């Protein structure tokens, strides 16, 4: 043995030489190594520090349950905290750092915490740090917070990409050991769709490191044969490096595939990781069993590790944990470690077997084992028995069952769609594992014969804690929970397994107690005189192993977080220099600045241009719903609080919808194109909700009605053409129709052809208060038509206007919008009470009659303007009676919308004011504490501009 690398054997490629660094120090390893195995081969055992006492720690396991050997991997945007060295496949140039230590792993100041450990017992912080009061915020807590956590996360964006995908199969096999392989093979040969997933870098499970004999070959060779056949079957998908992290309703499994974590940088176009949602008709848990540590003084000294891990490193990675070892066990399986290590030329200086009454009382050594019970050695292999990996089967609430025979919890029966086999089911004999695989893989009688194999009996005498041992005996390594903490918790009334977990933090570290929980449960049981079965486990939850946020996010990052929705006039808006604003998923043109203009200057110019000549606005985002059928009119009567069945063909009408609880829901104009054909418009914000509401009302309430509906929002590019010159501008586009108050009166709606061959819909409606039209053309023509309108309007200095100008004009006119239609106002509050029909049943009618909704003291919409007309006002200021002291009880309402009015040359707005309509003319105090701005304002009619609506018909 040169150093700790065993001369021969193992699944590493000795022809490769990979350079890597740990805490800046350079090392080399081989293809096939993990970071942990490479460090061990280099004689490095000290890999980390514990959470509370900062104890020196080495690797305990060889898999995903590792609590100690956590490192900071990679750098900058790719830096990952708390990465298990045992799961990191070595690659050339790998850089890793140890965590939670300062200044260095060797010399860690906070190791002094150990000295105070007699005070830092479980739950100590609940009992102190309370005096003096101010010290908690100022001193104690900041200190605790600073000390908290293990690794440091990056604050730079992640340069790698992630993917999500769905998969469907008849049989999902979780784990590729002998049991899983046999299940996959049997189902695969039966021809059904099979997925075989394993978190390991290679498939084969324990056969990658255990010396087994199957079908007359070594377990490893047998596995390779099976894998070769599985790979050749088109109906079988092999998924190495893929952890099934959770079991969810509907037999859906979440999986994380580590596509490129084994290389420095993913290949171009390839994701770092892929998150799978696997829909399995049936799933098989072949996840194996987890070896348990024994609980004795110094069981955390670097060099002490699981017996199976020690032979795993030796057999698979040709890495010897030590030159002279001691084996400590309570069961038969550690015998494998003795034979295997001896075979590799490692000296086994002692086998200490609790079944013979033998104990480890003390481990000598700080950063590396030196001796055990006086016997010199440099490593200790421990085996406290085996815990079947039941986690996934308990993710939906079932509790595992204690099995005395193997001294472990075995999976609950959760029904035929998810069954366990192999040592995950508590089967310790290889033959049982293979037989179980055949059983689970059998589909409609199509089965296989299990191969012959060498069995090795398993025997255990549970042994939980060497009470007499010197020094700390750890249960939860990472969180530094010791055996003594558990009886303490019991004494203090936290003996329930869930309370003890929270009081001592046992099982709450990144390994979720995979190694320690069963030991903890046994010790708790003893402390409170219960059996282990009575004590039971804590709740198993996803994630089996932690999952990166990136994987769950997939490609939906940054600007792609949500889809972008563009209007058919987007290109035209861009040509006109629009500044866009998010409105739900839509991008809407907010204003069209000219050189040197800010948003207000631009919006002001747009309003003036529109009110004095003509303006053009993209209103395509308004929801448009085609409503057809014999009963369309009747149906609308149910939806709106006002009546539509009487609307004559070719006419539009403003409507308001309530929710069933009587509160206003949405508004818009709906037009009748034919006896059995209406087109409804909704607000941009509520378009989707209104559609669902319509579907509900028809399918659930009035299925007998003959009505059909479909969203045509995206079919039409819709433009508002507003202003005294709107008609003149439009006339130039409209073919063979003389636009006039006769042919196209206010609230008319009709089909027209424009520019020769485009059939369009023309509505004479107005949000701005001007003589205005809305023109709807098929979306593909939108940009071209908009351009033509701009030409037609050029002589009138037509201006494109955005939502800012739109909202200024609607506020000038006192039209309600989102700020007022806020889900708490009634039609009455909005000043639309008279629209509520008393002749028919409609959604919301009954509940709108409740006293609280009819109360005149309710806040209703009024206009508001500052007494000092030169003053700027803002939304969100609250209204108080003059002379009232500020208090919520005295609150009279608030300002919901404000605008700078270019026409009236001042700031004005709309407010919701208690009993408002009776208070026109009153001077109120506006309380805007947020901006430290309190002032007087006058309550006025909501219609600030053109109160007689003369411009509408101008």
């Amino acid at each position, binding site marked *: 043995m040169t150093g700790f690398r065993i001369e021969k054997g193992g699944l590493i490629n000795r022809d490769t030489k990979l350079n890597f660094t740990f805490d800046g120090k350079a090392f080399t390893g081989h293809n096939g190594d993990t970071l942990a195995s490479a460090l061990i081969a280099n004689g490095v055992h000290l890999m980390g520090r514990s959470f509370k006492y900062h104890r020196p720690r080495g690797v305990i396991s060889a898999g995903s349950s590792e609590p100690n050997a956590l490192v900071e991997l990679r750098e900058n945007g790719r830096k990952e*905290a*708390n990465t298990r060295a045992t799961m990191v496949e070595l690659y050339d140039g790998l850089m890793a750092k140890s965590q939670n230590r300062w200044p260095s792993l060797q010399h860690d100041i906070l190791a002094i915490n150990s000295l105070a450990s007699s005070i830092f017992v479980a739950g100590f912080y*609940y*009992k*102190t740090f*309370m*005096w003096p009061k101010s010290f908690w915020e100022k001193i104690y*807590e900041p200190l605790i917070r600073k000390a*908290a*956590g*293990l*690794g*440091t*996360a990056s*604050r730079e*964006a*992640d340069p790698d990409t992630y993917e999500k995908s769905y998969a469907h199969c008849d049989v999902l096999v979780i784990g590729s050991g002998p049991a899983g392989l046999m299940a996959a093979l049997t189902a695969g040969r039966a021809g059904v769709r099979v997925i075989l997933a394993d978190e390991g870098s290679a498939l084969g499970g324990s056969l990658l490191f255990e010396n087994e004999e199957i079908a007359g070959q070594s377990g490893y060779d047998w596995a390779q044969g099976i894998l070769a056949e599985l790979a050749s079957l088109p109906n079988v998908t092999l998924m190495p490096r893929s952890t099934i992290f*959770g079991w*969810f309703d509907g037999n859906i499994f*979440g999986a994380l595939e580590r596509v490129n974590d084994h290389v420095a940088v993913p290949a171009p176009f390839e994701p770092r990781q892929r998150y799978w*949602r696997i829909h399995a008709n049936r799933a098989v848990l072949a996840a194996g069993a987890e070896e348990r540590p024994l609980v004795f003084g110094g069981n955390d000294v670097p060099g002490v590790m699981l017996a199976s891990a020690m032979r795993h490193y030796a057999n698979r990675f040709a890495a010897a944990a030590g030159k002279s070892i001691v084996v400590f066990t309570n069961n038969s399986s550690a015998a494998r470690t003795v034979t295997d290590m001896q075979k590799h030329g490692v000296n086994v200086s002692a086998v200490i077997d609790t079944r013979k009454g033998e104990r480890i009382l003390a481990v000598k050594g700080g950063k590396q084992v030196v001796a055990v019970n006086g016997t010199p050695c440099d490593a200790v292999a421990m085996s406290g028995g085996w815990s079947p990996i039941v986690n996934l089967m308990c*993710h939906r609430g079932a509790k595992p069952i204690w099995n005395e025979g193997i001294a472990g919890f075995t999976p609950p029966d959760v029904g035929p769609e998810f069954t366990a086999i192999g040592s995950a089911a508590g089967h310790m004999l290889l033959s049982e594992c293979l037989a179980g695989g055949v059983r689970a893989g059998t589909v409609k009688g199509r089965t296989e014969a299990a191969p012959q194999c060498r069995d090795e009996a398993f025997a255990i005498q549970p042994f939980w804690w060497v009470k007499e041992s010197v020094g700390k005996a750890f249960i939860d390594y990472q969180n530094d929970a010791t055996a003594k903490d558990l009886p303490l918790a019991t004494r203090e009334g*936290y003996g329930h397994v*869930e309370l003890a977990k929270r009081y001592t933090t046992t099982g709450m570290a*990144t390994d*979720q107690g995979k190694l320690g929980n069963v030991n903890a449960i046994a010790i708790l049981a003893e402390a409170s005189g219960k059996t282990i079965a009575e004590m039971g486990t804590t*709740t198993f*939850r*996803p*994630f089996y192993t*932690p*999952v990166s*946020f*990136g994987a*769950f*996010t997939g490609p*939906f*990052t*940054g*600007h*792609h*977080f949500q889809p972008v929705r563009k209007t058919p006039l987007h290109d035209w808006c861009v040509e006109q220099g629009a500044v866009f604003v*998010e409105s739900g998923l839509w991008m809407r043109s907010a204003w069209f600045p000219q050189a040197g203009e800010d948003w207000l200057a631009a919006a002001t110019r747009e309003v003036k241009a529109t009110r004095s000549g003509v303006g053009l606005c993209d209103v395509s985002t308004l929801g448009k719903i085609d409503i057809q059928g014999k009963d369309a009119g009747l149906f609308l009567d149910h939806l709106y609080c006002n009546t539509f069945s009487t609307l004559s063909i070719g006419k539009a009408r403003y409507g308001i919808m309530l*929710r069933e*609880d009587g509160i206003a829901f949405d508004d818009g104009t709906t037009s009748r194109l034919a006896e059995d054909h209406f087109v409804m418009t909704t607000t941009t914000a509520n378009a989707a909700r209104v559609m669902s509401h319509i579907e509900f009302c028809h399918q659930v309430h009035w299925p007998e009605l003959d009505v059909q509906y479909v969203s045509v929002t995206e079919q039409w590019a819709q433009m508002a053409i507003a202003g005294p010159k709107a008609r003149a501008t439009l006339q130039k586009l409209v073919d063979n129709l003389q636009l006039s108050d006769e042919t196209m009166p206010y609230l008319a709606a009709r089909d027209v052809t424009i520019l020769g061959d485009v059939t369009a819909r023309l509505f004479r409606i107005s949000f701005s208060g001007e003589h205005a039209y809305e023109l709807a053309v098929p979306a593909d023509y939108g940009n071209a038509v908009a351009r033509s309108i701009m030409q037609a309007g050029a002589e009138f200095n037509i201006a494109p206007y955005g939502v800012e100008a739109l909202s200024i004009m609607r506020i000038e006119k006192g039209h309600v919008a989102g*700020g007022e239609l806020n*889900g708490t106002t009634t039609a009455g509050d909005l000043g639309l009470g008279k629209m509520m029909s008393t002749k028919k049943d409609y959604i919301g009618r009954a*509940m709108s009659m*409740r006293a*609280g909704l*009819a109360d005149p003291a309710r806040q209703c919409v009024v206009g508001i303007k500052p007494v000092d007309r030169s003053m700027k006002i*803002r939304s*969100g*200021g*609250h209204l108080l009676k003059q002379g009232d002291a500020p208090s*919520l009880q005295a609150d009279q309402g*608030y300002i*919901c*919308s404000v605008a700078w009015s270019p026409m009236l040359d001042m700031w004005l707005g709309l407010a919701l004011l208690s009993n408002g309509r009776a208070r026109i003319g009153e001077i109120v105090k506006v309380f805007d*504490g947020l901006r430290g701005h309190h002032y007087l304002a006058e309550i006025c009619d909501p219609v600030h501009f053109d109160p007689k609506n003369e411009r509408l018909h101008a």
Partner: protein
Amino acid sequence: MKYSLFSLLRNSLSGHKNWSPAWRSPEPKKEYDIIIVGGGGHGLATAYYLAKIHGLKNIAVLEKNHIGSGNVGRNTTIIRSNYQLPGNNPFYELSMKLWEGLEQDFNFNAMVSQRGVLNLYHTDAQRDAFARRGNAMHLDGVDAELLEAHAVRDMYPFFDHDNPRFPIKGGLLQRRGGTVRHDAVAWGYARGADLRGVDILQGCELTGIDTENGKVVGVQTSRGAIRCKKLALCAAGHSSEVAAMAGLKLPIESHVLQAFVSEGLKPYIDGVVTFGAGHFYVSQSDKGGLVFGGDIDGYNSYAQRGNLPMVEHVIEAGVAMVPSLSRVRALRSWGGVMDMTMDGSPIIDKTSVHGLYLNAGWCYGGFKATPASGWCYAYLIAKDEPHTVAKAYRMDRFRTGHMLDEKGQGATPNLH
């Protein structure tokens, strides 16, 4: 035994062998003056204040599992008093004041930590809504600040300010908001109540309510029948079930909300932050885990667990807010069952059954309310009249049309 650094030192000398239980495990008595159903934060706080403030002694708290096994033991621990309705904010501000003196009051360190709660906004409409809310808080003398984008950037430069789908335009900040160690709240109140003679009966499930001519006389439990003069329901998430035992039907649906914790990290996000363009909010626990959550799964549920789509939905929003979270790992997810009411606000009221009281409907916001809820519920039970700051939490507000709908979503519980 009083907790202090001194008692800690003394006990360390005797190897911590002499600590007495934080609370007793008594056998149920035949009869109590008051029985509180639910050993969660609210139930235990109610018992504590009944004993401490109103000097009542003969009280039991029934808990079907172990105390803290419900939502108090599984919530994301955020406390704030940033409500806007007159019926709400004074109540939550009372709660905040009680939090501020709680640890000394019940001699248990619950790690009340006022690191600030920041609600981000991304549109002018959201800003206006926050302005309305912030000013309502100011009217009530509560601290609130409306931050502009640059101020948010200064606080959290590593949030997505440069390539976001929905730009962060600013935020509403309440500096007195923060977090509290959830379990410790249950334990502290339990210990405080126990010290004052309250019997905490764990593993004791309410299975029936005994009434005689319209009046409560006792209860049936998994540990036998117990008589009582007053019965106070406080079974968050299961209120409909326990109320049904007295023939009551509530304006409540039970829904599941998931929460998550990441692997432990060195200090990363100091305060509490909520995203305004998706369902995500986050704070960092004293152990270093990022504790985060988002929206309810959306379907009625009594299972304390959720499903994958919401996990994705929440984490997508998280990475949209903080891109560098991409390589952080989610460690554990869990769920809690909550009463979702028809207006998103709670109920603290008498019922049509004489001697039967109801504390319910806390939705996903009742942890911050724990002290005030206990305080006001105790007041109602002791004096048979509502506490001034809890007057609006009447059950009949739906019938009369006086809903307390902060969000304006109406009678659809899963939208609140």
